[in-house]
């Protein structure tokens, strides 16, 4: 069980107990998902039986139906989340450079301001800004929803990008420029690869935040922008557990897929980067 690197050293007793702890943690993580998955396919599950009496695909048929409350809302949500992730990550990448690599008047205030959505709840922001969004014509529009999601995702993206920008520093860029590389090639071959892991995790974090946003979408979208989270929410409070469960499982499956695609991409990117490095 010891990782290969440390095989030489003995696996201490502590390591063993730590592994047991992690296994218990994983089981606790998976139990709720398993329960939701079971409900999503059960037609009837009367008290006090421990297993469903009969199974059905009704839930998934409803969720994956070609309608505005089915696949339509799913695609809309994915689109909004991708747009929010791309936009916020770009903004945060630039902002993090301003904070970490430059000294300028107002830097501290700027840093504090971008962290504000950590300090004040999204519900307060949503209720406060709703009227302003309506008057600006941003309410009830997909663009407005993306903008609102980006604002609450900003501090997460900023703190991820600040960490990675600080760690990468300017060394590679300066070396690249000194060696006579142009600005564009420095950006592509020195700056971006250094930031790539941060960019990927920022994209992912923003995607998740946007995809699971309910309250903000409800207020800014005004019920017109019907994202997946908005459609599934009413089912959660009770009523049809089969459909609620199916919505839940589709939600988790989609996020997990996006996540795995990202992980694979990062892995590939790193491998390509390494090959390029050794070949040159």
């Amino acid at each position, binding site marked *: 069980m010891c*990782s290969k690197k440390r095989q030489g050293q003995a696996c201490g007793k502590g*390591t063993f107990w*730590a592994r047991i*702890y*992690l296994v218990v*943690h*994983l089981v*606790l993580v998976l*139990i*709720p*998902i398993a*329960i*939701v998955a079971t*409900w999503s396919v059960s037609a009837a599950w009367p*008290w*006090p039986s*421990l297993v469903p009496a009969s199974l059905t695909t009704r839930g998934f048929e409803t969720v994956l139906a070609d309608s505005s409350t089915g696949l339509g809302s799913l695609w809309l949500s994915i689109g909004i989340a991708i747009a929010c992730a791309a936009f916020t990550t*770009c*903004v*945060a990448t*630039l*902002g993090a*450079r*301003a904070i970490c690599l*430059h000294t*300028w008047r107002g830097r501290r205030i*700027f840093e504090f*301001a*971008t962290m*504000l959505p950590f*300090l*004040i*709840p*999204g*519900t*307060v*922001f*949503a*209720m*406060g*800004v709703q*009227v*302003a969004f309506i008057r600006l014509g941003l309410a009830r529009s997909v663009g407005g929803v993306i903008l609102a999601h980006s*604002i609450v995702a900003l501090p997460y993206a900023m703190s991820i990008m600040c960490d990675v920008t600080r760690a990468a520093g300017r060394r590679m860029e300066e070396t690249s420029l000194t060696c006579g590389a142009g600005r564009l090639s420095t950006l592509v071959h020195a700056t971006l690869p250094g930031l790539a892991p941060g960019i990927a995790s920022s994209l992912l974090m923003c995607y998740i935040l946007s995809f*699971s946003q*309910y*309250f903000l979408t409800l207020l800014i979208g005004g019920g017109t922008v019907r994202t997946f*989270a908005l459609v*599934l*929410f009413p089912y*959660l*409070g*009770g009523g049809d557990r089969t459909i*609620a*469960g199916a919505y*839940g499982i589709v*939600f*988790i499956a989609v996020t997990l897929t996006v*996540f795995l695609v990202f*992980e694979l991409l990062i892995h590939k990117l790193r491998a390509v980067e390494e090959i390029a490095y050794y070949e040159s």
Partner: protein
Amino acid sequence: MSLLPRKARSRVAPYLLALPAALLACVFVFGVANGVAQGFGIMPFLDMHTPTLEYYEQVFAREDLLSSLLYSLYLALVSSLIALVGGVALSYMLVKAKAGRVARLAALQIPIMTMHALVAMAVMFAFSGSGLAARLLHLVGLVATPSDFPSATGATSGWGIILVYIWKEIPYLAFCTVSLMGHISDSLGEAARTCGANARQTFLQVTLPLCAGAILRAFLVVFVFALGSYEVPFLLGPTAPKTLPVLAFIEFQDPDIVNRCYSMALNGTTTLLCSLAAIVYFASIALRDRRQAGGAHV
């Protein structure tokens, strides 16, 4: 940009880099300020311009306000304290078990990427009166009918709500600290052990103090989130007391638009609580920095 001389360019650069993020932050501040102003009865779109304390007075005169306020604080504090301890423990165990990439991802990312409301649904399925836990207890003869089981939905103790938060936030806290902790354990932890410190001393006197900044910050994020979130207490909370955001949204939805002033006064109260938490956070960071600076002199 290339039209500008080099020196001016480098002076302008940070402002240009910061501009988009600053604009987003401005919209946020504007939204919150707008809400706070409405709490003081300033609603320009209704031709209300004179600030008044009337709405705050009325809100504070409500019988249910104090219980709501305390209930919100209680839920946020208990869940984020448990998440703090659990998150540090999980992060420590991940480092100690030398968990691989896949184990890390499964342990941390699955809870982070699952929507709060979905976890609330799972808690409902598991711990409501006719939920799976009650069925298991029925099997061993402890529960006869669904009404015998202390259901997590609508419980005044809010244990279902707390369960949702800690299921989500323990991994989040660990996510915020695990890479730092792993790094410290590899470098300074190794050094401490070489110098003869045992595992406990190393953890308490080297690793924990160095991670304190990241831990405190994650704690603040989790606390503010729990204090201000609407979905979970809406789905699992009791009819009374309601949490502040739930109460605020009820007033917000009232057909009479003037009720928005009450809603915003409630939001102002939530904001005040969050600001207090932020002040405590910044004060403790400053105190720690000063203590560390003092220690360096000795």
